[in-house]
């Protein structure tokens, strides 16, 4: 087995979606069914990445391949300092697994979309953008060079903006698109600054080289705060991309895009990019930066989960849920368990994609996404309901689901962090998040899916009131009948859901669901040393649950966690059931207390009412500066130029032209004087010849 085979498979899997994108982008408008090409290419990409994954883990579990070649050599004028920009790709356990996850979710979403987007006039644009989205994400995964990573980072962003605003005739979609763009700009700028810090100090874009320098004690600006700054700046990119506090507002609004796109954004591509970036950059995090990551993650987790409890739009519930789950990943990462952050990313990718596709199925079937208007769907959508139960259990972290395994690890990491340094804040935030998560998951089950005998007779009337403009724009005319009875859609909808439900079962990840991290199938491939990054001295690993030697505290943390986590989960579920019995489960979102949560703690208003006016004021200030200082300088330069030109004009007129005219005048006069000897008579000329000859002879003989 040659390593080159794995590398070639990996790179082919990266570029397959690009082929799909190009084909449907250029000929999609002409051929109506061309979007199946994207599905086929998605399947090819999936097959390639699965093969690469199998071969990599089977034959080369200990190897990291890092290929780079020089792209541009820059020699400074002094000649002493020169550096080259190299393009590079890497293949290691982490990114092969990540690529496979991306391809699985992407393929599932592509299959699902063939039915969901059926009949949309712009369907080829949709599919080509999805392929492009997947390609961007694959490219981001494939390179250790921060420059290439940043390029694909922006392409991922670009594709997601295009897809959020896919229904561009809707003002709300356009606004959501712009919001996503603007909020990502802030984080991307921080990420860019981080890259520049690394570039200025280390003269390289290659993240593995940067790790080496850091390990040798070569810190940015030669101080620990330099490393902290670098870590936080890179985390800034992840904050906006992964919709973390305080740049999380764009994600709920991204629901304006088609639902399968939400599944893709929330599971595998857009927001996963931030977590993936932090995972590969984790060796750069020192204690301070790691704590910032953990704290931001914890705050976002509680923020997202608490806001999700009162949302009325089924997609927004899951959107806020994503913010909280990503927050949990960052909390695990910041407390040292890089492995659990990644593991939760993988399991979350499947069950969150599943939840979104479930909500897509509900919306597709009922054309309604307000949970107050939906009820007893279990009677009509048995498959959707069944898979929802699996996904909901997984997101709550119920035993025997993938979510249980990963979430235990996340919570245990934070508890271990607390046990070691006595700071239980992050752990408390995680447990609070678990409570809210269980609450909203059970709430959706009770309100939307649970078969309620009392409601059933009223069902027939209920469908007629569902004509919300916010519903995903369905243009399928062949579904005109569905107002009379809600029914499951075809296999293109059902099979992806079932596949994702299967992927949310624990046995795919670990045989013993309450075992130590060592028993995870993926764990042996994803320890820090396997990823080629030994940690700097003051790093996050002392707190890590998944790294380092066994200790008493680790056992303690692993012992506490199942009880604590399962306890708060049950508490949350119980709370939802009690409130349901009291008929208070779906409170008025405009209530005194719920209003704060419903509006996301008014963070949107914070941005629109405080930040935006400040920004406008600042811009006006800049405009004044521009008007009086910059324009003043420009105008002064203009005036100065006019003066200088006038002076130069005078000089030109009198000196330069004078010299020319004088020469002409001299020539004129000389010619006039000399022309008299030109008589035209042969004898005169001969006379001149004779005298000249005599003159020359005399001259020669002197």
């Amino acid at each position, binding site marked *: 087995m040659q390593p080159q085979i794995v590398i070639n498979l990996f790179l082919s899997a990266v570029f397959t979606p690009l082929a799909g994108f190009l084909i449907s982008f250029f000929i999609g408008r002409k051929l109506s069914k061309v979007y199946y090409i994207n599905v086929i290419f998605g399947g090819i990409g999936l097959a390639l990445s699965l093969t690469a994954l199998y071969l990599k883990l089977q034959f080369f579990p200990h190897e990291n391949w890092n290929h780079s070649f020089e792209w541009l050599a820059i020699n400074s004028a002094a000649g002493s300092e020169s550096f080259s920009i190299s393009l590079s790709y890497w293949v290691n356990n982490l990114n092969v697994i990540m690529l496979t996850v991306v391809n699985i979710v992407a393929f599932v979403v592509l299959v699902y979309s063939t039915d969901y987007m059926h009949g949309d006039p712009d369907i080829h644009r949709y599919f080509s953008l999805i392929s492009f989205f997947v390609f961007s994400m694959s490219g981001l995964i494939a390179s250790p060079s921060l420059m290439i990573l940043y390029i694909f980072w922006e392409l991922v962003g670009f594709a997601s903006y295009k897809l959020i605003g896919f229904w561009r005739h809707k003002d709300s979609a356009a606004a959501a698109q712009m919001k996503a763009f603007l909020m990502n700009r802030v984080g991307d700028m921080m990420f860019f600054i981080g890259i520049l810090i690394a570039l200025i100090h280390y003269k390289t874009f290659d993240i593995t080289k940067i790790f080496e320098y850091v390990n040798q004690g070569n810190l940015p600006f030669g101080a620990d705060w330099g490393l902290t700054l670098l870590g936080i700046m890179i985390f800034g990119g992840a904050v906006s991309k992964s919709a973390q506090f305080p740049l999380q507002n764009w994600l709920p609004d991204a629901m304006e895009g088609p639902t399968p796109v939400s599944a893709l954004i929330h599971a595998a591509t857009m927001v996963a990019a931030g977590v993936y970036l932090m995972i590969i950059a984790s060796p750069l995090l020192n204690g301070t930066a790691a704590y910032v990551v953990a704290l931001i993650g914890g705050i976002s987790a509680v923020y997202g989960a608490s806001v999700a409890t009162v949302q009325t739009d089924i997609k927004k519930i899951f959107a806020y849920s994503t913010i909280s789950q990503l927050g949990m990943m960052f909390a695990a990462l910041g407390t040292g368990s890089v492995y659990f952050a990644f593991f939760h990313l993988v399991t979350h990718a499947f069950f969150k994609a599943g939840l979104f596709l479930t909500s897509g199925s509900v919306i597709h079937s009922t054309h309604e996404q307000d949970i107050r208007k939906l009820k007893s769907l279990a009677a009509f959508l048995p498959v959707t309901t069944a898979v929802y139960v699996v996904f909901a259990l997984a997101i709550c972290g119920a035993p025997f689901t993938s979510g249980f395994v990963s979430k235990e690890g996340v919570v245990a990491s934070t508890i271990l962090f607390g046990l070691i340094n006595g700071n239980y804040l992050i752990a408390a935030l995680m447990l609070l998040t678990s409570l809210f998560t269980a609450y909203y998951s059970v709430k959706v089950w009770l309100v939307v899916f649970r078969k309620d005998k009392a409601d059933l007779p009223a069902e027939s009337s209920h469908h007629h009131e569902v004509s919300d403009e916010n519903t995903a724009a369905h243009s399928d005319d062949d579904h005109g009948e569905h107002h009379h009875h809600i029914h499951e859609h075809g296999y293109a909808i059902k099979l992806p859901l079932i596949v994702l439900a299967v992927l949310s079962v624990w046995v795919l990840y670990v045989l013993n669901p309450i075992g130590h991290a060592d028993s995870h199938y993926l764990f042996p491939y994803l320890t820090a040393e396997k990823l080629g990054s030994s940690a700097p001295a003051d790093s996050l690993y002392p707190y890590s649950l998944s790294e380092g030697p066994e200790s008493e505290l680790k056992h303690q943390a692993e012992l506490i966690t199942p009880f604590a986590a399962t306890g708060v989960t049950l508490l949350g579920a119980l709370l939802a059931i009690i409130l349901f019995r009291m008929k208070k489960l779906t409170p008025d979102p405009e209530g005194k207390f719920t209003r704060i949560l419903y509006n996301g703690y008014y963070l949107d208003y914070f941005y629109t009412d405080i930040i935006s006016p400040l920004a406008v004021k600042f811009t006006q200030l800049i405009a004044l500066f521009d008007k009086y200082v910059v324009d003043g300088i420009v105008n002064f330069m203009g005036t100065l130029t006019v003066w200088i030109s006038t002076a130069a004009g005078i000089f030109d007129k009198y000196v330069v032209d004078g010299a020319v005219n004088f020469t002409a005048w001299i020539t004129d006069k000389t010619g006039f004087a000399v022309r008299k000897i030109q*008589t*035209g*008579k*042969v*004898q005169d000329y*001969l006379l001149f010849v004779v005298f000249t000859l005599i003159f020359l002879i005399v001259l020669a003989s002197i």
Partner: protein
Amino acid sequence: MSITLTHFIAVSAVLFSLGLFAILTRRNSVTILMGLELILNAANLNFVAFARFSDTPFRGDVAVLIVIVIAAAETAVALAIFINIFRNFGSIDPNEIKTLKE
């Protein structure tokens, strides 16, 4: 007093000067042609004199015969030109022929 090379050259110089004077001053082209002949003969005289007083085996006096022949041919051509000039300008006075100026 014997006749030396200097005497020959002096006579030749006088002949040359007279010819040149005739060429520069005469108002009749035919006279100018005659001046030209004088100059040619001055040159011929030099040839003969140098041949007489030189010890070199190459006798320049042969050139005199060639010069006389060419002078005859030249005179014939010149007279033909004069006829043509007379036809064009109505005169063979060189002062009247000033078109070289243009």
